[in-house]
């Protein structure tokens, strides 16, 4: 059976009833990364959240936005670009996925090093927990320490504590000048070059090694290449450009390379083992928010 609730009340009722009956649910946003993370238990029934989309509140002057969780990254980018703003979520995986899934999986992107992880961009959430209760932690203002931080708890919880239905995010103004360059670097030490560039006085907005599979489609030779995004006012970018050139042969390139880079297959994260005490806290959190263990069971161990 597949569920597709169209209102918050329906979703709440559905989760509450599933908890009572012990029926597992698998939360699906845009369905772009269904094999992400560990496989959900096979008997879990798909719960589609695509009804929870759309821009709910956007006041450009506040540089904040509230969207339905099923809003795609592409929609978020388009609506904010119209006001010369952006949200640096831009997750690995591309623009087809939903904001809700990006937050649920805490998927970062190339701008995380400079501008922060998803947890740093989320201001507030609306979530239906594993008992069907609607929770609204956080808010829509950029600074908020009211109450225990359920927002950070739910960010990266992979939908195992609740289904995210709304997300409030912090935005940024688009930089006046924004350029992407590729630079040829020592094949043996490409990461060192990236590290060194990040430590220079005009650090980049993003800096990544071009994967082998992408070099040909962007006309790059066999050499190792770093792709660098430099952004700021004209004076800053001019200095940053000089810094890029100092690292090796460089040329400007279409910013579309970032999308291609983000769409490239992800490198699986290497997990270190969880200590017993931390594992126990995790288990207690799961049972506090999803006591019937029906939401994405098995996905977080």
């Amino acid at each position, binding site marked *: 059976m597949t569920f597709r609730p169209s209102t918050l009340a329906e979703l709440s009722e559905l989760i509450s009833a599933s908890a009572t009956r012990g029926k597992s649910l698998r939360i699906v946003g845009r369905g772009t990364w269904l094999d992400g993370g560990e496989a959900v238990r096979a008997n879990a029934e798909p719960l589609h959240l695509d009804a929870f989309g759309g821009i709910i509140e956007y*006041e450009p*002057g*506040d540089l904040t936005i509230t969207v339905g969780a099923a809003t795609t990254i592409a929609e978020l980018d388009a609506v904010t670009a119209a006001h*010369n703003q952006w949200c640096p979520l831009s997750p690995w995986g591309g623009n087809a996925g939903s904001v809700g899934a990006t937050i649920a999986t*805490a998927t970062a992107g190339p701008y995380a090093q400079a501008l*922060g992880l998803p*947890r*740093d961009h989320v201001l507030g959430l609306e979530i239906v*927990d594993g008992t069907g*209760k*609607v*929770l*609204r*932690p956080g*808010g*829509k*203002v*950029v*600074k*908020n*320490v*009211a*109450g*225990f*931080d*359920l927002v*950070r*708890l739910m*960010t990266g*919880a992979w939908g195992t*504590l609740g289904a995210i239905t709304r997300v409030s995010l912090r935005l*940024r*103004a*688009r*930089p*006046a000048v924004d350029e992407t360059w590729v630079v040829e670097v020592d094949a043996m030490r490409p990461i060192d070059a990236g590290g060194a560039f990040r*430590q220079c*006085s005009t650090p980049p907005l993003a800096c990544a090694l071009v994967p082998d599979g992408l070099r040909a489609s962007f006309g790059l030779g066999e050499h190792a290449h770093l792709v660098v995004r430099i952004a*700021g*006012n*004209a*004076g*800053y*970018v*001019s*200095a940053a450009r000089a810094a890029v050139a100092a690292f090796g042969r460089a040329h400007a390139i279409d910013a579309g390379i970032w999308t291609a880079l983000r769409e490239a297959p992800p490198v699986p*994260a290497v*997990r*270190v083992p*969880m*200590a017993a*005490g*931390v594992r126990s*806290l*995790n288990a207690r*959190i799961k049972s*506090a*928010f999803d006591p019937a263990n029906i939401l994405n069971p098995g996905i*977080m*161990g």
Partner: protein
Amino acid sequence: MATILPTGRVTGKTYIASGSMTAIQYHIVKLSAASTAAVAGANDPVLGVLKNKPADAGQALQVVRALAQHGTPFVPRGAGTGLSGGALADGTVLLGLQRLKRILEIDPVRRIARVEPGVVNATLTKAATPFGLHYAPDPSSQTACTLGGNLAENAGGPHCLKYGVTLNHVVGAVVALPDGEVVTLGDPHGKGEAGGYDLIGAFVGSEGCFGVAIELTVKLTPNPERIVTLLADFTSINDAAMSTSAIIAEGILPAALEMMDQATIGAVEASIYAAGYPTDAAAVLLVEVDGAAAGLDDDVQAVDRICRAHGARDVRIATEPAARARLWQGRKKAFGAMGRIAPHLVVQDAVVPRTRLPALLAQIAVIGEKHRVKVCNVFHAGDGNLHPNIPYDAGNADESARVHAAMQEIMLACIDAGGTITGEHGVGLDKLAYMDQLFSPDTLDAMCRLRDVFDPDRRANPGKVVPVRYCREWKAPNRRQMTDGAKP
């Protein structure tokens, strides 16, 4: 040196035993006979540690475990500079962590520092200076407040506009849970992600209710190449507020963007912290622009232009450290300067969407007039974080009532404007009454559920942050005979 209190009977009184700043600082109310006897035995090593405060993490852990064994509630405290009553310890044992003040490691390559919780915020920055680094969150109390307290409160500060709050700078922590178990949250040693929930994210800002951080790993930030501080002077507070939004809208992200109103300027200029602010201005904006030298002056000129276009009479630009420090002194010491106006001061902390600032400031002025109180606004305008403070005499019952009424109206106005009740000071005891104006019963109940994961007995900083009525299955009466000082 104070004598050791209390004796082995239930007294119902508060004992504050403090001979000097380093002597006993703990309060015990209505401990059960058993736990009092255990904690207060004449030669009890735990009491000995409490008396002098734990000297290291091992001793702190020893105390936490003894308290767990006896089911005794406790409040962890750093420097006690908090502004929401979060570290008040009436009815509980006060666990002072100020002696845990070792900087364990500064790694200039990874740009992190490992510290004990009692390290003073500014001390870490001083230690990081030789490496060209600093600790970015800078609460106004940074020369006194501890990093452990900052972690507990998710402290902010003027430079959080650009650099983020404490949450954004804590990599991990070693935490003594209230039951005495030690867990490592986050990834303090850079070993890699262990998966699981964002426990360090949940722990930061938990106001001492989730346990005691006995070691913190925090990020260090490269010092900016160049810093310029501007002081813009306005004849209308509305113009100053409009300039704030215009600066941000232009795409400039200042390191700090602070506003002070005429009442605050007057208080500062009459004090020893006088910073040369124009006393006839309706408001001043203190704007700091920092970062790479390249392009920085373009931003400085843009800020200057925007302020003048919005009616600034004058814009002063300071580039030399001494001149910048003088401009900042008035802002950083503004709360202290207000202390000269009246014997007491209510410090408030609320946030509104930045575009609502002009309307809110007008509304606050009306509320102040209505209740005949003097509101001094000094705040982080860039992120809409208001501090409407009211100097008053707490001995005057009528004035106290008016101050209380005005504060309540201001807070409700901020909530109505889509804001929140605290941006950086925490809920503590002070904001408990507003929590259910902001959050639904289900959301508050969920916060209690999270607290119970870390502290099922609710012994760590009991009665703070979430009104007790939302925390079901409150087990206090039979487990221990303590009063819950925070029942709303």
